[in-house]
């Protein structure tokens, strides 16, 4: 059964890859794709990378996009608009802890909205 996919958008390719490593230690089945750095892997974000990651992470249940600072959010918003994927959501949550929670929730087979809400809920209590 397909799980909600997760896209990790960071200015740094290392950060995105590192977070994926952390999650993969525990959650192995959930689709996780990284979009770190510019097209030349320098510090920055890139719409094409985000679009590709969204495509790869979507196995039918939608994708949840996490982002870090500055232009990451704008590029993510544009990628969502350009992809015309209705089942994609941007989430305003801590990149590391948030995506970890999302991966666990997604692994339980929850819907995109349920995963999103579970992450938001887990950080609103703190």
């Amino acid at each position: 059964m397909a799980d909600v996919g997760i896209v990790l958008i960071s200015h740094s390719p290392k950060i995105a890859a590192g977070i994926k490593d952390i999650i993969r230690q525990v959650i192995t089945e959930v689709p996780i794709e990284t979009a770190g750095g510019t097209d030349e892997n320098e510090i920055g974000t890139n719409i094409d990378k985000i679009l590709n990651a969204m495509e790869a992470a979507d196995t039918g249940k939608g994708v949840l996009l996490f982002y870090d600072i500055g232009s990451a959010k704008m590029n993510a918003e544009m990628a969502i608009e350009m992809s015309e994927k209705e089942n994609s959501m941007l989430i305003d949550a801590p990149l590391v802890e948030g995506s970890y929670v999302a991966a666990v929730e997604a692994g339980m087979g929850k819907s995109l909205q349920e995963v999103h809400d579970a992450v938001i809920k887990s950080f609103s209590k703190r």
Partner: protein
Amino acid sequence: MKLTVNNSIQWFLKANEKMQENKEYLTLLDKKIGDSDHGINMARGFQEVANKLPTQDYASVSDVLKDVAMTLMSKVGGAAGPLYGTIFLKMSTAVKGTDPVDYQTFTNGLEEGLVGVKQRGKADVGEKTLVDVWAPVVDFFKQGVDFQADQLVETAENAMDNTKDIQASKGRAAYFKEKSIGHIDPGSTSSFYIFEALAEVIREGE
């Protein structure tokens, strides 16, 4: 004057020259209140635009603007990519169907670009961003009846200089809070170069 496909290509070729010439200066401005990548990003993005435009066969100004937008979006690493990309994409849509582009249609395009970038960056006038150059320039165009090169440069330059006294509340500079005062906004400066390039095209077209 009306803006032709060739005029619009010249506009971006000239803008690219300015981005290359002022690459270090833009980076210096960004070093003071940002992440020091604006010069590098703008130079890279506009170089891609300048490489591509002369090799393509464009049917309309709208098509030129669209290609500029898409190239900037994918080749500029910082916030400037999505912001300028949005501006030129909105302009492209607004001038579609009118070719060459007359003054009123161009003015409308600039205004749509401004509306789009404000939405994209969630920024308004007075936040020390490129909106602080685009808004006065759009007002200037709306008040006029035909392209005016000298006054365009003057309007854009004054607007750019005025960003010096503003405290940033959007973009990376916002992290610097009151320390952002006293520095010209890098995005406003690159926007000034774009309008300066447009003024040169207007002069040549007269």
